[in-house]
């Protein structure tokens, strides 16, 4: 493979020109497929007020395969595990080459607003979310203050 696919450079250009609100994306070092992402916690969610770090990588076969992305900031969320891995259908079997980095980041932001404890990755967290949602949301807010203060 020679050079970076046009598809990737175009996506980066557009992300710079027309950024997603609450999300900043930066290339890490000299690897144009590797990004550091900072995501503001959505308002009206227990993640509000937090700034969450993620890393995102576009594999060699992108866009035929989805981007790889995970949180680096500790999260209390039923669909995010202890290593920051994210359970999201478009990052797996629902991926389509028509989707973009932008779509992925928007979906992750939406997942913070709407946790889905019925499709958990972190089982203990999902259990808490189902049995005592109020306490789960309180814990998520505490973790946000502790680990993600902007």
């Amino acid at each position, binding site marked *: 493979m*020679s050079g970076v696919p046009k598809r990737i450079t175009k996506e980066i250009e557009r992300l710079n020109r027309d950024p997603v609100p609450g999300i900043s994306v930066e290339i*890490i070092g000299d690897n144009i497929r*590797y990004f550091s992402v900072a995501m503001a916690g959505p308002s009206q969610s227990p993640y509000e007020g937090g700034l969450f770090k993620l890393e995102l*990588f576009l*594999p*060699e076969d992108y866009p035929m395969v989805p981007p790889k992305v*995970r949180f680096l900031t500790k999260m209390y969320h039923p669909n995010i595990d*202890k*290593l920051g891995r994210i359970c999201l259908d478009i990052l797996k079997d629902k991926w389509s080459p028509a989707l973009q980095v932008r779509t992925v980041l928007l979906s992750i932001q939406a997942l913070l607003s709407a946790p889905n404890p019925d499709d958990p990755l972190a089982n203990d967290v999902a259990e808490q979310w189902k049995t005592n949602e109020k306490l789960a949301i309180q814990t998520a807010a505490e973790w946000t203050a502790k680990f993600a203060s902007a």
Partner: protein
Amino acid sequence: MYFVEPRNFVLLRELEQAEKGIGDGRCSYGLKTPDDVMMYRWDGTIFDPHHSSSENGFYALEIYCGDDYPKKPPTVSFTQPLRMPGLRDDMCTVDFSAIDGLKTWKASYGMAHVLKCLYNHIVKHKPRSLR
């Protein structure tokens, strides 16, 4: 511009591979603590083909993947001292330059390859326990 898979995503891939099980089951590895986000410290095990100098039939190893992994090899050491060639003076830490298959490190090797080479080394040299 060449293609480079970043360290953290290499290690996430290796972790998934380890969770599925590697090779014929004679070697295994996993994160030492499940919330080590930077994935530095790993535990490895190698089946003892001689049923002799190991504890419980397996050799236990500690693997450290630094910030330069996989460009640089991991640091690998047995948790018990052994009399066997290919180890440094502490009789635990593996000297990659003395192990067949590891003498010239390649970023594509991964921990599965390291453990497999060590297994072959153990088969060949039959270590003796120093405990």
